[in-house]
Each structure stands twice: as C-alpha cells, then as structure tokens.
C-alpha cells in the first residue's frame, strides 16, 4: 500500500503545517485557539519524524511520534487545566491578560 514519496515533499508539508501552527500561535489571543495551534505544530513535528522513519524503513520514527503523542497528551491535559484557572481568575481567555511575569 505504501508508496515511494520524496522526503523533501513530506518535509515541506510538515514545515507548512508547522508554520501555520506558528502563525496561529502568534496571531490568536484566545488560549483555546493557541493550544490548538500548538497541537498542529506538534503534529507537524510528528510528521517529520514519520517521514524520517519512512526514509529508512525503520520503526524509530514511529516511536518518536508516539513519544510526541504522549507529550502532547500530557501538555493538553495540564494546559486545559490552566485554561480553566485562567478563565476563572481573569474572567477572560485572553492570553495577554495573564502577563504577571513581566519584568
């Protein structure tokens, strides 16, 4: 079923996804959207790993992807908890409101 794809193409797609995610992170102020964008970025990183694994026909890429997956799951769990706290404390989902770490 699998086909031969130039790695460059996959990497380009991964880069595109990554940059779209980054764009979202930079533009959106709503934390929910921000987190979604982050998910996209992580996903693109996973894609790059898979591509690398496929290049060598080795399972390591998939294992890395699984680790990223675990990371993403953990991150989302904690981050969403934080979202709840922020929305309660600042009464908004504006990420710029939570700027108490300013110097």
């Amino acid at each position, binding site marked *: 079923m*699998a086909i*031969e794809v*130039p*790695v460059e193409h996959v990497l380009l797609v991964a880069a595109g996804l990554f940059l779209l995610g980054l764009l979202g992170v930079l533009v959106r102020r709503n934390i*929910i959207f921000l987190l979604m964008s982050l998910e996209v970025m992580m996903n693109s990183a996973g894609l790059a790993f898979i591509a690398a694994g496929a*290049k060598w*026909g080795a399972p390591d890429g998939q294992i890395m992807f*699984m680790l990223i997956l675990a990371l993403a799951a953990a991150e989302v769990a904690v981050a*969403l908890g934080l979202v709840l706290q922020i929305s309660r404390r600042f009464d908004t989902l504006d990420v710029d409101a939570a700027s108490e770490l300013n110097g």
Partner: protein
Amino acid sequence: MDLALFWIPAAVALASTLLVITRKNAAHALIYLVVSLLSVAVIFFVLGAPFAAALEVVIYAGAIVVLFLFVVMMLNLGNTSVMRESRWLRPGMWVGPAILVSILLITMVYVIVGLPNANVTTGEMVGPKAVGNELFRPYLLAVELAGFLLLAALIGAYHLGRRYLEQRREP
C-alpha cells in the same frame, strides 16, 4: 500518479489547518482540526506507518480533541465569544506574524530543497510488530519516562481542574 496519494491528503491537511487558525468559533475550529489530524493520519498511512496513523486517529483526533471539546463546552463559549474573537482578530493583526512566518517558510524551503541526494522513502510498511519490538526493547527507558510524564500530567491536571470545580461550587 502515486504522489497524488500523498499530495491530496497533504493539501487537505494544509487547508483545514489554515481554517483552524482563522475560525472565530472554537467548535468550528475544532472540527477543522479533526479534519487536519485525520488527513495527517492518511499521510502516515501513505508513508507506511499504519500504527502511527491509527494512533493519530485514536489519540489525537479522538481523545485530545474531545478534551478540547469538553473544555469549550465547560467554558460555554457562545456568540459573545465569537464576537470577541472578531474584535480581537483584526486583519492588521495578521501582517507582522505573516511576514515572520513567510521568512521562515522561505528559509525552510530553501534548506529542505537544498538537501543533498535524492531522498525517497522506502515504500515499505513498518507494522505494529516492528514498532513494538523496537519500543519495548531499546526504547524501554523512553516508555518509562513517557509514563512518568503522563502520570505527572494526570496529577497536575487533576489538581488544577479540581480547584476550578471547587471554587465554582462555592458561590
């Protein structure tokens, strides 16, 4: 011709991602996110990683997005939030980040295209068995660490969320 098998889901992924970051309604955005994740899953499959593709569907498109959905529902983001989003998302906001990102894009494309040799994937399937063999032998430590991480996240999320719920109940 074969490349179309790759490029079609890729195009879908890119397009739906673009929609994710531009939607004003969080629920809509989530739907597009699911689409994006599913199309990436297809790409995985095309690249010969069926196990990863399955995980992508189950965990990403399933569990994580559902988690998002729960939160969106808990926060009760209705029309007001859509209007607030449109207030926050003025077109001018896009300019600066877009420039940054396009510079990055150009450099990345430059770097990727400039890679030496012709690199082509093998086109072989690497099934769950191979992955499992590798995962629980040399990468066992990584699995353990991931377990720790998840446990920590579990406790953290529980802690954060519980306080939220308790404090909500008070008034």
